[in-house]
C-alpha cells in the first residue's frame, strides 16, 4: 500500500476511496478544514473552507470556498463514491481568530462565523459531528486517513490529536 498525501489548499477539496491516501490541509487559520468520513465504506473527503457564506449567485463558480455550499457539495461527491449519508461523520478544524483579541470588529471574527456556518450546514444535512476543534487563536493542520477514517489535528509545536 503506497501512502499518498493529497494537499487540500484554500478553496480546494479532495475525495478518496483509496486506502493509503491521506487528505491534508496545512496551517488552517480562520479557514475550516471539514472532513467527512464513512469509516465502513472507507470513503473520505476534505474541503478547505475560507468564508462562511456564498454570495446569492455562484454563477458556476466552485462551491468549495464557502461553508454553506461546500458541505452539501462534499456530501454529494462522497455519496457518488460509495459513502452512505447516514454513516457519514464530520470533523472540523480551524476557525481560529488569528489576530488581535477582544474588541475586534465582526469582520475580524471570520473564524467563528466560518465554524458556525459549517455546523449549521451539517445540521441541515443531518450529518453527525464527531469532533470540532475550532476557535481559539492558533492555527491547525488536519490530516484524514482514508483507510481508517481517523482524522488527526495538530497545532504548531503540539502533538497530533486523533479524532
Amino acid at each position, binding site marked *: 500500500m503506497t501512502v499518498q498525501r493529497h494537499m487540500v*489548499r*484554500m*478553496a*480546494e477539496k479532495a475525495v478518496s476511496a483509496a486506502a493509503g491516501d491521506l487528505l491534508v490541509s*496545512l*496551517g*488552517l*487559520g*480562520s*479557514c475550516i478544514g471539514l472532513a467527512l468520513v464513512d469509516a465502513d465504506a472507507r470513503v473520505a473527503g476534505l474541503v478547505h473552507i*475560507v*468564508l462562511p457564506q456564498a*454570495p446569492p*449567485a*455562484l*454563477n458556476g*463558480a466552485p462551491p468549495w*470556498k464557502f461553508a454553506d455550499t461546500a458541505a452539501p457539495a462534499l456530501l454529494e461527491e462522497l455519496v457518488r463514491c460509495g459513502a452512505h449519508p447516514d454513516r457519514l461523520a464530520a470533523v472540523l478544524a480551524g476557525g*481560529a*481568530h*488569528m*489576530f*488581535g483579541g477582544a474588541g475586534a470588529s465582526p*469582520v*475580524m471574527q*471570520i*473564524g467563528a462565523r*466560518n465554524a458556525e456556518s459549517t455546523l449549521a450546514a451539517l445540521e441541515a444535512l443531518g450529518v453527525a459531528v464527531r469532533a470540532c476543534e475550532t476557535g481559539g*487563536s*492558533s*492555527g*491547525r*493542520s488536519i490530516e484524514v486517513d482514508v483507510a481508517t477514517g481517523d482524522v488527526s489535528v495538530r497545532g*504548531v*509545536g503540539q502533538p497530533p490529536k486523533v479524532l
Partner: protein
Amino acid sequence: MAADPAYSDLELSAIQEIANIGTGNAATALSQLVMRPVDIGVPRAELVPLQDAADAIGPAEQEVMAVLTPVRGDLEANMLLAFPAEAAEALGALFGVDVSTDMGASMLQEVGNILTGSYTTAISGMTGMNLEPSPPLVAHDMLASVVDGVLAMSVVESDTVLFLQTAIHVEGTAVGFAFLLVPGEGMVPTLLGALGLG
C-alpha cells in the same frame, strides 16, 4: 459575484512602482530604527490564485511571528510582516528583548507601526489620499494560518489576490522577513484612479 481582478501590464507596473517607493521608505525607517543598513529585494506585484496564496510566501507550516497592520481611510489594505521564528529572535536581540514576551510583542508592533506608517506616508505623498494605519496585531503561528487570517479579511468574493511582496534583510544579522501588502476590495482601482490611470 464580483469578477476576479485583472490588470493590464501598465497597471501592474504602476502598482509595482508604488510598492517600490513604499518599501524603500519603509526600509529607510527600519534602517534608522536598528541603526544598520537594510537590503530590500525587488518588490513583486503578482496576482495569485487563492490556492497558491500561502505557498507564494513560504512553507505552509513554517513557524512565524507575524505582524498585521490594517490600513484604513481612503482605501483598505492589510500590511503583513512575516518573520521566520529565528529572524524574529534576531530582531529581538537587536533591541535587547525576548520576542516571546509581552515586551517582544510590543517591539514587533512598533516595528509594524513604523514600517507601515512609512509605506503609507509614501503612498499618501504620491496620491494625496488619506491613509490611517490601525494598531498592529501580532500572531505567533504557522505561516499558512496567518496568511488565511489576513485573506479572510481582504478577499471577499474574488478567487485571486494581489500580493505586493518584498523580502527585507537587515545586513549583518539573521533578520530577514517578508513584507506583504494585500489590497482590500476596491483598493487597486482607487489607487490607479488617484494616479490618473483609472
